């Protein structure tokens, strides 16, 4: 039994002659963790701004909790969206943010917020303007987690966070999500970092959805074969190849699609090695040189 919390059909957002969101369809179900993935400028933040009623669509249909989100208090009170480039009132400190948050989020857990402040070592009395990039991300992460909003958005939550802080975010999110299931949408271009957290992946590029699928399906959906060039070529002959590399007499090719038992036996006979493709690699293949046709290949950190 799943309940739909948000649904978009043919959603369009234009800025002058630039089409930021180009007719997308998407559905968010209750109690899942979504990854909104894509390169910089792909339209991730725009989608979240549309879903939270911060900007108005130019076309298509959009329903969040059954209504258009903009200007509907009974929808907006169930959302939490701290943007990556969020503006804060003049001279605000994290302490001011945490003081006012309970007035806006009815499920706010102050004790949880306090614990997160200690976890992230966030200086409460420092002005927001003076915070480092990582500390600024921590403010958004703390509000997002402690709000327990039925539909919570995290916009690039990993920006500037160190390895320990990223692990803390990951752990706290999963712990709290287990106790208080809700719908979470996480946007990022650091894909491998969040890959294991995601239950569902929505990949966007240039305002269009390239992939909208269960994360487990995506993970097994491509395979890299490596070995002597001739053997690799014979094996991949008529299969859809989404990436190739060669060094001397050795080559590797990434095949889009699952391999069955017979395929695996054949690969073994040819002396080829099979390796699963990580979510990040797959997305580089999907949004990188092949589709964009651009000479540069994104090297995600």
């Amino acid at each position, binding site marked *: 039994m799943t309940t739909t919390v948000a649904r978009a059909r043919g959603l369009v957002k234009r800025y002058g002659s630039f089409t930021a969101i180009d007719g997308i369809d998407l559905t968010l179900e209750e109690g899942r963790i979504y990854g909104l993935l894509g390169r910089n400028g792909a339209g991730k933040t725009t989608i979240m701004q549309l879903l939270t009623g911060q900007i108005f669509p130019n076309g298509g249909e959009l329903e969040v909790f059954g209504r258009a989100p903009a200007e509907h208090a009974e929808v907006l009170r169930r959302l939490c969206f701290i943007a990556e*480039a969020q503006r804060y*009132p003049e001279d605000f400190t994290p302490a001011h943010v945490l003081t*006012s948050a309970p007035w806006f989020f009815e499920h706010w857990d102050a004790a949880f917020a306090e614990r997160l402040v200690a976890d992230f070592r966030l200086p409460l009395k420092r002005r927001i303007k003076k915070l480092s990039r990582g500390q600024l991300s921590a403010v958004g992460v703390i509000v997002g987690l402690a709000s327990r909003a039925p539909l919570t958005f995290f916009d690039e939550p990993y920006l500037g966070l160190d390895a320990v802080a990223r692990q803390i975010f990951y752990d706290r999110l999963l712990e709290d999500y287990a106790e208080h299931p809700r719908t979470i949408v996480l946007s990022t271009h650091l894909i491998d970092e969040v890959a294991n957290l995601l239950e569902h992946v929505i990949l966007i590029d240039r305002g269009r959805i390239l992939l909208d699928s269960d994360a487990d399906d995506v993970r097994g959906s491509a395979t890299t074969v490596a070995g002597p060039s001739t053997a690799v070529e014979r094996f991949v002959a008529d299969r859809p190849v989404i990436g190739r590399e060669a060094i001397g007499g050795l080559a590797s090719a990434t095949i889009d699609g699952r391999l069955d038992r017979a395929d695996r036996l054949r690969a073994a006979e040819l002396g080829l090695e099979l390796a699963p493709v990580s979510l990040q690699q797959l997305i580089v293949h999907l949004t990188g040189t092949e589709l964009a046709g651009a000479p540069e290949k994104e090297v995600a950190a």
Partner: protein
Amino acid sequence: MTATATGPVRAATTEGASRLRPNEIWRIVRLHAVNPSIFFGVPAMVLGGAWAITMVIALILLGSGVPMENTGFRYSWAVLSPQWYLIVVGVQAVSYTFPFALGFGATRRDYWLGTGLMFVLASVLYALAIATLLLIERATGGWGIGAGMFDALWYVGGDWATAFYSTFALQLLVLFIGAGVTTVFMRWRMKGMLTLAAGAMALILGVIALLTFTESWEPLGDWLGSIGVVGVFSLLLLTALAWAGAGFLVIRRATPR
């Protein structure tokens, strides 16, 4: 009738029961006041600073033997010193606090109503302070040294109520102009600001031309004189309310950054 129940109450039970959501509006007032230095601390400091400077000037005049009647304090603009800062407060209420409130799930409507309520409350407070300080200044004979900061400009000869009313109207106008102009930027960006500036210029030139060609400057001056201080400040109050109404219409479709 409130939409403020705690716990996961279904939206449908509160929807339509009341178009006015007191809690949703009041929390915007609290958001503006959570850092009290913006609306209260800094204006008090500016006013205090202007008062200190006035005191020093009065001491200098006293020391040099200028007779109290000739000091010219009644032409001092020191009492208006917080106005410039309050325009900025109005601007920042929309440019910074508005995007933040949207992120926290406020509607534009509730945000503007709450902000307007904050402006009214702050203006009442400033007006109370200035009208009362005016009476203290008179009672102490210019703080004991013939200094005049509050008993100046149109306040001269007016009673407490007139001082309160005129200050209230002026504060509200200043705050709503700052916030109202910024809503235009938040909705139409630079294009909107340029259009607004050009429109304002055209309007001012048009009024000047009209008054000049119809030789109405003198009748206008006479009319303003006939309606008095209270009448003039009533016009300012009406202007403030017009900005408040216009800002509401503009912000309903405004988008952050």
